[in-house]
């Protein structure tokens, strides 16, 4: 074998790393110079796809005994088209099949059955001429067994960038229109922007001290511009002033998954000690209720408990409370939103 110059070798390595198909061309074919050229034509626009249907990479082609042409293409989805001998579109095989993900070859056997070889799913499908599935060779791997190879959930990084978030959780506004964002799982902070989206400041690192958070999961801003942060992992609501200085901590209402503040002259704060989503029913007796509070942290009352039924709460993730007596709660594990009407109690009535 001829020794290759080093640059060609490194190119070879590069290419072999990038793709297993492509082979670098070292020079013209030996027979090229001594072989006469054969004249030929190409039929232009032979295949007529229906409007709105497009070819992708042309990967497989085969004909049957009638001259019909089968085209196997890698497009948005891998697809198998049939055209007649004049190039008119006839039909598509196996729309939405489990066995089409990355086309490799199509062949037609002596009985005009159509065989599609798919290198993505590791499956070969045998179709009858009319598109019925006759046989499957190979088995698509169990996707769950491959999940550990996938990238997945963003973790805490504490990157604290002015203009990018890491699994941010909530947003609120003060009366001047300044924007507050709790951010979130991948950071542990509260970010303030002006009404035009210009970064002003951010506070917070991960932890349980002053101006520290463990998954700031929700937020509400009162009419004075104070920010109430649901510091879920620390089982507390942290109150910040408008410049994000820490003012107070309310730690008697469980783990706040969701908070909201009413849009009424006398504002109330609601906080949900949600049933956690780990599906551990041992935690159901300790969680699930929603607290009604004064903005100063005074607890006025509570309602609800964990459960699947109506009037029970199955992991409340967000609450809306425009008025004190009518709330909407969105639940993760029951796949629903409930509309809640609170009947006024003596204590809440007197505090009005």
């Amino acid at each position, binding site marked *: 074998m001829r020794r290759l110059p080093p640059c060609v070798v490194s190119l070879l390595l590069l290419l072999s790393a990038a793709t297993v198909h492509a082979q670098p061309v070292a020079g013209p074919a030996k027979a090229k110079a001594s072989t006469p050229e054969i004249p030929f034509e190409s039929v232009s626009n032979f295949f007529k796809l229906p409007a709105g249907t497009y070819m992708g990479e042309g990967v497989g082609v085969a004909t049957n005994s009638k001259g019909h042409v089968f085209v196997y293409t890698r497009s948005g989805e891998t697809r198998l088209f049939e055209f007649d001998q004049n190039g008119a579109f006839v039909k598509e095989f196996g729309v939405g099949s489990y066995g089409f993900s990355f086309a490799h070859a199509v062949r037609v056997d002596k009985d005009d059955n159509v065989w599609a070889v798919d290198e993505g799913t590791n499956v070969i499908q045998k179709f009858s001429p009319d598109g019925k599935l006759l046989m499957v060779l190979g088995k698509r791997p169990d996707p769950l067994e491959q*999940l550990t190879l996938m990238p997945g959930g963003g973790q805490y990084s504490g990157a604290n960038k002015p203009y990018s978030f890491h699994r941010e959780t909530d947003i609120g506004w003060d009366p001047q229109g300044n924007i507050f964002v709790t951010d979130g799982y991948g950071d542990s902070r509260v970010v303030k922007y002006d009404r035009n989206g210009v970064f002003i400041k951010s506070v917070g690192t991960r932890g349980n001290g002053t101006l520290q958070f463990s998954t700031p999961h929700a937020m509400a801003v009162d009419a004075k511009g104070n920010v109430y942060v649901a510091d879920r992992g620390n089982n507390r609501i942290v109150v910040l002033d408008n410049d994000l200085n820490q003012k107070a901590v309310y730690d008697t209402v469980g783990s706040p998954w969701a908070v909201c503040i009413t849009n009424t002259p006398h504002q109330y704060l609601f906080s949900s000690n949600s049933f*956690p989503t780990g599906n551990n029913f041992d935690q159901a007796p300790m969680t699930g209720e929603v607290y009604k509070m004064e903005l100063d942290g005074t607890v006025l009352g509570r309602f609800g408990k964990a459960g699947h039924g109506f009037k029970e709460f199955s992991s409340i993730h967000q609450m809306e409370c425009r008025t004190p007596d009518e709330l909407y709660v969105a639940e993760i594990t029951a796949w629903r939103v409930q509309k809640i009407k609170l009947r006024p109690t003596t204590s809440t009535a007197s505090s009005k």
Partner: protein
Amino acid sequence: MKKALLLLFALGVAVRGQSIPELTYDTNADMIQLPAFGEVAGVATNSKGHLFVYARTGHGVATLGDERTFYHNGSRIFQFDQNGRFVKEIGQGVYAVNFAQQIRIDPQDNVWIVDAGSNQVVKFDADGRFQLVLGRKPENIGVRPGPGVPASGGMPAEAAAGGRGGEGGRGAPGGGAGGRGAPGAGLNGDAFSRPSDVAWDRAGNIYVADGFGTNNRIAKFTKDGDFLKTWGHTGSGPGEFNQIRGLASDAAGNLYAADAGNKRVQVFDGEGTFKSQITAVGTPQAICVSGGATQYLYASNSNEPESMDRGEIYKVKLTGEVVGRFGRAGKLPKQFGMVNSIDCRTENDLWVGEVWNWRAQRVTLKR
């Protein structure tokens, strides 16, 4: 002593399989045409004879460029009438419809799916509307460090373990680690790990076979979905499991669990008390209990993906006595390829769903 000898004798013939009668049967492999081809994981009929198919079709999708790479799509639910004509699809785009495992119809004709990708059980009414959701899909698949962070850093232990750290972060769902001590016992709740089947008793209590992942238990819920109890963990003794692949109940409320890895069907009462086991049926995977005055258990000794051995289906009296067997593994009509589901509303008219052959066959047993 005589009893023990008899038992030994029974086991001996079961292992040789020679004196188990071959049942005559016929199939129709062409009765339904799937609107989208794929592995038929679940088949079930309702009281009108309509057939519901839960199939793995298209692809599970993981979105690129997200912090939350999660599992969507991957399976579909199709309904056919008693003549095999396609009626409609239900559950289009539903969050839990990812990796079809089983479908069952309860006595009120509600449609229940068991999904081993989302780890969920979802109940639809006969018109395809949500009735109940059990379990929760993992928020993300796999793990990776955040941008610019080494793989070892950042993740606090409490979040990594799940718990209250976040509604995400539960890397490996279920498992004995957060459970009740014994490996595979799972949590007191509906944190399923590749659940495989669902069954009910007369009161409507729900039993979930959980499953063929890290849990090896059966979880019981009220008809409203509230947790009642769980039993079982990983092992080979009575009440222990090694991959539960199927679950069925009889009219008396007994439960039959296809304990595949231990090559037996375990029988429990509705409180989880072990009653007996059936061991002469190979590696039971799909199982069902027939309707009718005299109920029978069918259990499929399904082939493995790399083999064309086995594949026969056993017909068993509820006392455990094997009545007969039929079929074998293969790709032709009348043969069975990785049967994952059997519907046996009546004793002699069955549907089988095949993962290998991507089809549902109507099976008629001859008397």
